[in-house]
């Protein structure tokens, strides 16, 4: 399961795409994905906000994830 990284999320992991470990199993929801990432990279827990987009839409924590989804981490936005 691949996630796209932008802004400070890219700096935290050090790459623009991260392969989420399949062991013990892939995260099945947005909430599980966030838990995995915060466990592996505690700096995610220090951000002002930390959202996930699934197929180009903001996804709430109960949204299910599939291997075919385009998944991205959305750290606090700051356009404009």
């Amino acid at each position: 399961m691949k996630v796209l990284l932008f802004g400070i999320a890219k700096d935290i992991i050090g790459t623009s795409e991260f392969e989420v470990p399949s062991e013990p199993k892939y995260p099945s929801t947005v909430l599980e994905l966030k838990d995995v990432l915060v466990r592996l990279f505690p700096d995610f827990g220090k951000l002002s906000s930390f959202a996930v987009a699934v197929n180009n839409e903001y996804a709430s924590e109960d949204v299910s994830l599939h291997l075919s989804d385009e998944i991205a981490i959305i750290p606090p936005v700051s356009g404009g």
Partner: protein
Amino acid sequence: MYIEIVDEIDTAQVYKDLSDAGSGGICVFVGAVREFTNNEAVVSLEFETYKSMALKEMEKIAAEAIEKWQLNKVVMRHAVGLKKVEEPVVVVGASSAHRDACFEACRFLIDTLKERVPIWKKEVFSNKSVWVSAHP
């Protein structure tokens, strides 16, 4: 509706995009790089985006505004890459029959863009660089 992520903002173009025989009012906001942030001299800003999602979010915002204020035309254009002091980084605008609608819509477009559109700004100072708003 003109929704774009671009390398350079052409501010001379936006009026032509918004002009319309049914529009008595056109309101445009341009955001540019300011030389100081909290009294520290800014060298440049660097913008990064998740382009496919950013365009989708901007389209949703524009569609919301068109419906709410019965706009004739809308522009939302954001630049990415390295931007120096005084360079424009974003332009949003709306045209409508009367001026109330285009002013309110223009304010909504920029406020909502800043809240929701996946674009990230790094402020580059002489001795450090900071992702804006990343930390509380």
